[in-house]
């Protein structure tokens, strides 16, 4: 796999290269947007890690141009952590957005996930009702099996039920009480935070970064949901 790493900071590029190389990827460095685009012309790239604040051509503009020709996964990497920046980046066509400073291991995990998604998981049929798919999260209801990025995940029955509920109603927000009532079947009196604890455990199992979940998202003060993908 060829991965293009583009950042004006040489040390960062170097560091990322070291980590990814350990995973067995082939790294091609670039130090500004222009360079990246040029490399794209000549080489076969399977994933780009792109910084935003760069001279000559910044990441957003580069991505914009890139997307005209290619649909390969792009992970944006930036010190800009505002929501606005994230939204912009994702809207322009990025598949993921990571803020600096970042946990290198998380970066590696995301790279892996993106690649897998792009290569292996592109052709999954979604017509089967008993198979729920959300991004790389796959739930086989017949086999009671859950996989993330192709890797199976061990969930407790409760956790499975919760995840099923949310995946069935992807996009709908459930409050803790609602989840409790549906799963445990009792009236939710002072039910403590048992639901949120389960949510957290699920996250730890299926999310790359439980603190920054891709699937099991929270709407603060309202409830939990899984986004429709």
């Amino acid at each position, binding site marked *: 796999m060829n991965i293009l790493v583009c950042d004006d*900071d040489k040390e960062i590029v170097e560091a990322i290269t070291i980590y990814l190389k350990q995973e067995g990827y082939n790294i091609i460095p670039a130090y500004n947007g222009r360079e990246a685009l040029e490399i794209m012309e000549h080489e076969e790239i399977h994933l780009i890690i792109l910084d935003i604040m760069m001279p000559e051509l910044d990441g957003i503009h580069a991505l914009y141009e890139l997307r005209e020709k290619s649909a390969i996964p792009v992970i944006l990497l930036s010190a800009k*952590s505002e929501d606005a920046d994230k939204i912009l980046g994702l809207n322009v066509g990025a598949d993921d957005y990571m803020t600096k*400073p970042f946990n290198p291991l998380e970066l590696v995990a995301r790279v892996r996930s993106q690649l897998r998604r792009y290569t292996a998981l592109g052709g999954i049929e979604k017509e089967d009702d008993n198979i729920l798919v959300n991004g790389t999260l796959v739930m086989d209801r017949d086999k009671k099996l859950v996989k993330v990025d192709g890797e199976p995940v061990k969930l407790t029955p409760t956790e499975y039920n919760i995840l099923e509920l949310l995946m069935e109603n992807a996009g709908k927000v459930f*409050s803790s*009480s609602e989840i409790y009532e549906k799963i445990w079947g009792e009236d939710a009196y002072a039910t403590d935070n048992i639901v949120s604890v389960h*949510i*957290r455990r699920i996250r730890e199992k299926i999310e790359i970064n439980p603190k920054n979940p891709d699937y099991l998202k929270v*709407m603060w*003060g309202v409830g939990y949901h899984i986004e429709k993908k």
Partner: protein
Amino acid sequence: MGKKDTEKEMNQVVKTKGKWKYTRMGKIARGFLCMVTYMFFVSFAGLAGYVFYEFGTDIVLDKNYDISEANMNRISDEAEFVAECVRDITEEKNNAFRIIDADKNMVNTYDVRDIMNSETYFIDSLSSIKQYVVDSSPLDGSIYDEEYSLKLIRDKGLDLYDDCYVFFTRDSFKNIFKKNGIKNTHNWLSDGFSESAYFIYLDPEIMSSLREEEQLMNVETSPLDSNLLYTELADYKYAVYDPVQDIFYSSWDDYFTSFTHYIYKMSDITEELYSHYGAGESVSNIIFPILWSENYRDIWEFISNKYDGIDNPEYELQKRAGSAFVYYVKLYDKDGTVYSNVDSVQDILKKDNMNSYVVAGNNYKGEAANYSEDLYGYDDIVSTLDSTETGCIMYFGIDPSRLKLNDESFSASYVWIYRNIACNINYILIGVALTFILLTIQAASLIKTTGRKDKEHNEVILNRYDRFHSEVWLLIYLSLIAGSVLLSIYVMKRVSGMYFFSKYGYRSYSCDIRILINGVLSSIVFGFSFMQLTLSFARRVKAHNIKSRLLVGELYRWVLKKSGEQRIKIYVLTYILIEVLFLAYVYKKNMWYSPIFILFFVLMWIIALYAVVRVSADLKELCEHIDKTRDGDFDIEVKLQDSSSIFNDVAAGINHISDGLNMAVEKSLKDERMKTELITNVSHDLKTPLTSIINYINLLKSEKMPTPEAEHYVEVLDAKAHRLSQLTIDLVEAAKATSGNIELNMMPISFDELVKQALGEFEEKYEEKKLEAVIAYPDKKDREMYKVMADGRRLFRILDNVLQNAYKYSLENTRVYIEIINEDGQVKFIMKNISKAPLNISADELMERFTRGDSSRTTEGSGLGLSIAKDLTRLMGGNFDIELDGDLFKVIITFPQLRSL
């Protein structure tokens, strides 16, 4: 420890004591005390004043002050009073009698009228006795030589005669005979009657007219040497009255009796009298119990009945009248009963220094006189009189020398006052002085503390009323003084009237408890007003407010002040001047209501109206413009209708202000933008090298270190790098939160749901430190009560901060209490935990950025947390509070409840 504490307490007590004077309660209490002192002072002063009024100022110095001397004056007042009572028998003053006081001065002359058949004829409770009082003491001829008119009223109150009687002394009478060439051949004229007898003779001229009128004249024969006398005095009608011997003799029949004592029925009046004047109230009482009766014995019975069967009327009379009352009552009954407290009539008549009166009574009811025609000699006269069983003659007098201070009944109240009050005048005066001093001290203290909050602050606080003009204040003050002086005079008059009949008449100043109450209440009102006004004055002096609030001063300043309203002033002053001049002219020429006057008035009104309209139009526009400016519309300039408007200066001023505001606002916005940009840029620049640091440390970690120490060093580097990273993130957040430069995504949030979600995140961490979260979640049906409007993510961030805080700094193995409540429409999140390290700073300091509970430690965390949390909360319209109590750390986050419509 104990000693220090008590010292501290004592100091506090002392401090508060000194301060108490200045507290509101202190002032009110002291004001009340002052009023009380004032009341005492007024009472003492009033008493002293009264004592001086009654007894004169000598009483102060003279321990052996003789009350009787003072009483003497009163007694002659009494006598006068008696006389007045008698006088006031009828309004027409048809009765005549003479009263001569101890100095043998004739006090009054009155006409006497026979109104014996009239009904109770009374003026006041004292004076219903119809009598005529004849002076029975020996008189100088000089007085008696004058003529006194008498009206004879016969039957049913008709006047018969007037101006027909002349009074003479015995000697003068003799002279008449001499003058008229009548021989006095009989000694009885001189011998038969005492020197104090007086003679009355009827003018023959009148007699003839009488004869004509009435045809009743029968010339009487003298009982004695009638022929002689008769012949010689044929045309003279005369009568003799000898008070000493009780002889009355007239030379005509009783039909024309002139010396008749008519006593009238006045039972109901007597009742009233008794009720008003109990025994011993006054000397004048002695007149009262004389009743009309056919049988004069009834009088005494009446008296006895009144006193519960006491059958000693003398005693009663004595009791009521007191020892100074002397009386001699002789009834013309068979027995010639005499009631007296003296040995003989002479004791009454002849005594010096005494007011004595004679009342001659006859029961005349319109029938034939009781005197028979045939009178032979004195005894016969007397016996005839005696045999009628009617009539009485009463002498009474007021003998001051008999007055004993021990007298219970005689002017008991007077004596009582003398003994208990006047004799203690010295104490009273001391009381006056003491209360006065006390009053002054209290007043001084009140004045000192008035208007000030406490000892240290010297500024004076004026209340609204202190600001009215000095002249007004002065006016009110003077009115109060005048009012209170008048009041006290009035009250004193009434009070003194209560006990003693004034010279000016019977009970004209009646007094009862209502007067006293009135007096007390009014004193309180006056005293209070005095106090308030004086304090107000004191405050104003302290605040130097007197001069500045002079009405004239203000007018003066207003006139002279140079400002934009110069023109208004000129207009107004001119207007007023014209009006005043015109009014003066009209007044002088007395042209009120003339057409010119009306026209002028109308004209003035029109001018005034026009001015008002113009001014208000301009004013309205100005106000509108100011409103716009306030709303942020700085660009418009105000233009007034008329360039000569008086508000032009104001308008220009407002325009200037608008410009200034405009500039200020723009600058402020620019500054804000720059600041935010700066922070964001800086943080970006920080993050880049930081990323590398973290990355390479991570790489280091995966390498093998030569020594365990080296490994440890790498660990340290890692930790610090992460801390630095956190700090950078926090920095941006803090800056944005404080400058308000965050875009908030407000939506309805279930606070309780949020708390559950947040706690879910911390479950493991808390377990790690063995912290037990104790939470009380609301019931499902109450969930509406916990909805708030906020930015969910940000609110989570806040809770995250707070929970993180608890996690980091709590003592292991303790409980963390969390509750969500709705209090008066405010949703509150309360978290309590026990701090691991002692919190020896205040809540405010803790909230300051970069402060952490234990400032010496260097554990994780940046210290920005609480500060950011507070600012974020505020931005969303909530409240963030911290309370520290020993080791207990309490966080309270409040949001208004979101009410659905």
